[in-house]
């Protein structure tokens, strides 16, 4: 069973588990399609150049092969790549997109064929206006071909475990909170997963922030955590807001950071 939660396709499995996949938006899909079209036209051009050598054998044969090769490349590109590359054409791979079954199952050959053949209607009247409109209006960003084939295009994500070592890299690793294990225990108990996640993400992304915004963000976060906790002043005096958050994250994720 599946439903949509904002920009995600949520799958509820028969075993009672839930997982979600990020749906691809129409603009990203359009850009991926532009790349695919460029590649298709490029391949056809190269094939035509090579087929020109056949003229010496037979002009008639060259004409016939050219028409068939163009036809096969035009219609076969999407079908072959999506079938052999787990739902990814070159354009989709570049934009980290993938065609999947709308129930999270593996794609069947029939689904791939149908979604590609239905492009005949999706591309009407020009530049995928029908398909694009369907994509915008559809709950799952599906063009008509996707609706017919029961497929969706999702964004693929990197499937590596997080690198928490980056949080403490190059920084003063001493944590003044560690002298107060009973308060640290209370912190772990009191803090919600969402709060912990915000603190961790703020640290992981700190170098990509604008300096003023960085100061502002850590000041806000530290202010929030300070109201929740009552560490003695010896532990917090002289700590910058960012260092305060680093200590909080270190307390929450310490064992993993050490690993």
């Amino acid at each position, binding site marked *: 069973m599946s439903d949509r939660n904002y920009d995600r396709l949520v799958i509820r499995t028969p075993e009672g588990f839930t997982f979600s996949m990020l749906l691809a938006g129409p603009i990203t899909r359009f850009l991926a399609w532009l790349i695919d079209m460029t590649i298709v036209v490029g391949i056809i051009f190269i094939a035509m150049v090579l087929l020109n050598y056949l003229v010496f054998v037979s002009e008639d044969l060259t004409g016939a092969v050219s028409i*068939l090769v163009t036809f096969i490349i035009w219609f076969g590109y999407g079908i072959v790549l999506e079938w052999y590359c787990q739902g990814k054409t070159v354009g989709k791979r570049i934009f980290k997109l993938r065609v999947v079954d709308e129930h999270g199952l593996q794609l069947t050959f029939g689904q791939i064929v149908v979604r590609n053949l239905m492009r005949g209607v999706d591309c009407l009247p020009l530049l995928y206006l029908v398909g694009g409109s369907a994509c915008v209006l559809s709950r799952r960003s599906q063009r008509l071909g996707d609706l017919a084939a029961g497929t969706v295009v999702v964004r693929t994500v990197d499937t590596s475990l997080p690198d928490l070592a980056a949080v403490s890299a190059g920084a003063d690793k001493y944590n003044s909170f560690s002298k107060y294990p009973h308060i640290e225990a209370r912190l772990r108990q009191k803090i919600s997963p969402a709060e912990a996640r915000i603190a961790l993400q703020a640290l992981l992304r700190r170098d990509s922030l604008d300096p003023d915004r960085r100061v502002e963000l850590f000041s806000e976060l530290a202010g929030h955590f300070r109201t929740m906790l009552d560490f003695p002043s010896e532990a917090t005096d002289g700590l910058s807001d960012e260092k305060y958050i680093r200590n909080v994250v270190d307390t929450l994720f310490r064992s993993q950071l050490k690993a």
Partner: protein
Amino acid sequence: MIIDLEKFIAQERPTWDELEQMTDMIEAEPGWPLDLKEARRLHYLYERAAAALTRINTFSSDPEITRYLEALVARAYGVIHSLDRRRTRFAPLKWFFGTFPRTFRKHFAAFILSCAAILAGTAFGGAMFLIDSDSKETLIPAMFAHTYQSPSERVAQEEARDEDRMAGQKNTFASMLMANNIRVSMLALALGLTFGIGTLTMLFYNGVILGVIVVDYIADGQGVFLTGWLLPHGSVEIPAILLAAQAGFIVSSAMIGYGTRDCLKARMRRAVSPVTTLIFGVAILLVWAGIIESFLSQYHHPVIPYSLKIAFGAVQLTLLALFLGLSGRPGGRFAEDR
């Protein structure tokens, strides 16, 4: 409460790695044999990873671990629940002589609708031509401009021709016909998405063109030429277009959902397999029709006697009807696997 992530990951990591390896293997090699022990192990690993995902979502909110586990669980779910869809070795002969005609028979009502639409168009076109013969150029598009001239004149020209006008371009012409007809068939299928209105309109209009030409030639006393011209390739080409429209009507029927309580998604899902089968069958028939049209239909009496062309077309049509009607029936070589 935050779970001890290090301990948790250290504990679970081996099972995640094992699940990832098994999923990789099955995805890379769909025919990978799974015995009962392996299938149980795969399911166990999947359930364990899914349980870990639930725990992470409940007790921690680290987005990277969540993303990693979601991707892993999604892949494993896809593999496990698609075991019945696993790719089996494709047997082309069994598919063509078994699956294809069986699919055609299973959805015969859609084929009848295709026939009715084209016949209605033919009758309409014929009637329009009889009422006003000047409507010919309005009803027939410019791409068939060679039919604008009087049938008698054309027959006289064709029969007087002493050089081979197709010389040096038969292959190109055949390829052009194949590509164009297959493209038209795909459109007939895709237009099924317009609740069948597009497919119906397309068939009707093709019927109108056919009706005008047929009545024009018969009224001019050129029925034999017409039959000899159209039957050799038309006996395959027209049924192939009707089969493509049949596929389009299967799609539209799934969209409308009359007489079933299944949801749209379930109906469309059921339509995918027959539609794919029919359209590939159509493509094969149209390749044959293109060859016949280029190498046989364009030659007329005295090069090839009309009787021979008509006999060829009639035999071909009979064989096609027998193939679609009887091939793949129970007890035969290409019967459905039980």
